[in-house]
């Protein structure tokens, strides 16, 4: 029995609201399949399963707001029988800390079914204020399975006396009541899809996003000793190549300079594994692929940095399509969980409306951020003469616990060199 817990969809998320289940108990699921939609401060995210299996129970309820780490569902691995679930799952749920603030209750029902989203102990101090207030202390404790069973069987859960911990109403209470013919619930069963909580809409939502950014960036500046290097990169060759390439292409197929810059970063990273990966509790792990988190500003304010997965192996045309799609979905608030958790480095590109240079704040647990300013024509000294060329300033902010400025500088030089050979960059695979 495997517990499917609410993942942290980025360093800036500490809770989420379940909007929709995309699976039901007994469904076979594949690794990467979307099993639920969860609302965070930034977007509604399609949460993907990380392994193959069969859905056991859905423990989280639609509309439920829960902290990261809450057990949302149970999953049986291939070959595991349904009957095996009881002992192990129950043991885990009970072992997990039961929310003393009255947010969760764990209990094993008569069928041996564990039914509780148990709040896990925090692994690090919670320094940022919660975006949303905790549930009132007097809130009635009802296990999700109990609530679900009550809804399905028309039992008025408010009329029941709970026999679980802290007086929680548990599945057994509902089953007993259903068997005895308890009063019918006055309202229809819960809708399958929850509306976004109205309080989360509009201004409140923007405030929540601000808070999420504040939490992640404060953590970054508190924990990561940043160092910065920058390099001016001439782009005459790259832009001439792009122009020639684009003149052959239909409008929808044309490439933005940003795509060339992204590909160059992904390729350059191969020689600099110490910039590509994650640092957890001071221990650095290099990532095998380059998943470039792309900082995308949202029209209503704030930003999000979903990842272009494995950017180093893709042709520019593919990257352009994926970038277009990513920007569109980020703005529409519809991203996949892997895009928010698998980024190995972030790239921020100010584009043609920005300033000439940007020095970023690393997005933990990543260890580096590459920034590109606006491409501008500048005087450029070369071979004893001065020319006017399009130039971009690339910067690197990196984690000094993992790499040094010397290596960071070499990385930017490599990036500059790659951008002098755009046609090779396009063909570059892996």
């Amino acid at each position, binding site marked *: 029995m495997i517990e499917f817990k609410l993942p942290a969809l980025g360093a800036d998320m500490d809770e989420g609201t379940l909007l929709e289940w995309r699976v039901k108990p007994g469904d076979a699921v594949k690794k990467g399949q979307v099993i639920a939609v969860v609302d965070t401060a930034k977007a509604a995210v399609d949460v993907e399963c990380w392994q193959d299996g069969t859905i056991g129970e859905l423990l989280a309820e639609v509309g439920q707001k829960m902290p990261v780490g809450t057990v949302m569902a149970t999953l049986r691995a291939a070959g595991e029988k349904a009957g095996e679930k009881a002992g192990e799952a129950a043991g885990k749920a009970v072992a997990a800390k039961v929310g003393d603030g009255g947010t969760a209750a764990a209990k094993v029902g008569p069928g041996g079914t564990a039914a509780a989203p148990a709040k896990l102990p925090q692994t690090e101090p919670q320094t940022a204020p919660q975006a949303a207030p905790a549930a009132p202390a007097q809130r009635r404790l009802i296990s999700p399975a109990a609530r679900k069973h009550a809804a399905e069987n028309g039992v008025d859960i408010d009329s029941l006396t709970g026999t679980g911990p802290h007086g929680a109403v548990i599945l057994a209470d509902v089953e007993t009541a259903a068997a005895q013919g308890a009063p019918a619930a006055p309202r229809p069963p819960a809708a399958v899809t929850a509306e976004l909580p109205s309080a989360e809409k509009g201004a409140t939502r923007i405030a929540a996003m601000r808070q999420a950014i504040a939490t992640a960036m404060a953590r970054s500046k508190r924990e990561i000793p940043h160092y910065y290097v920058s390099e001016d990169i001439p782009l005459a060759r790259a832009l001439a190549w792009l*122009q020639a390439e684009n*003149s052959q292409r239909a*409008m*929808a197929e044309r490439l933005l300079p940003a795509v060339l810059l992204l590909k160059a970063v992904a390729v350059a990273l191969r020689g600099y594994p110490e910039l590509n990966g994650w640092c957890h509790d001071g221990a650095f792990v290099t990532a095998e692929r380059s998943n470039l988190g792309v900082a995308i500003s949202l029209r209503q304010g704030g930003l999000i940095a979903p990842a272009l997965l494995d950017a180093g192996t893709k042709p520019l045309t593919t990257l352009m399509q994926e970038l277009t799609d990513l920007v569109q979905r980020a703005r529409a608030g519809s991203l996949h969980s892997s895009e928010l958790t698998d980024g190995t480095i972030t790239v921020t590109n100010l*584009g*043609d*409306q920005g300033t000439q240079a940007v020095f970023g704040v690393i997005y933990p647990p990543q260890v580096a951020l590459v920034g590109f300013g606006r491409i501008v024509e500048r005087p450029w000294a070369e071979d004893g003469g001065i020319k006017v060329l399009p130039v971009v300033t690339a910067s690197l902010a990196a984690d000094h616990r993992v790499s040094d400025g010397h290596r960071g500088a070499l990385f930017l030089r490599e990036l500059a060199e790659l951008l002098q050979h755009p046609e090779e960059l396009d063909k570059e695979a892996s």
Partner: protein
Amino acid sequence: MTQTDIRAVVLATLKSIAPEVEVDALSGDRPLRNQVDLDSMDWLNFLLGLNKRLKVEIPEADYRKLVTLDDVVAYLQAKVD
């Protein structure tokens, strides 16, 4: 298509990319991107939207001619006719 028709299409396309924009407040003779926050991707999508709605092919070399709202309308009108 009349100039008014084209202008309406341009503004509708703009609105689809920047829903918050108040089109009545835009000056036709000032650079559009100084008035509406459009990044490179937005700008590309704006031009692509015009391409789809009006069936007008816009070569990349012409992108720099399209600065103000009036520029865009005049350019498209010449192409549509």
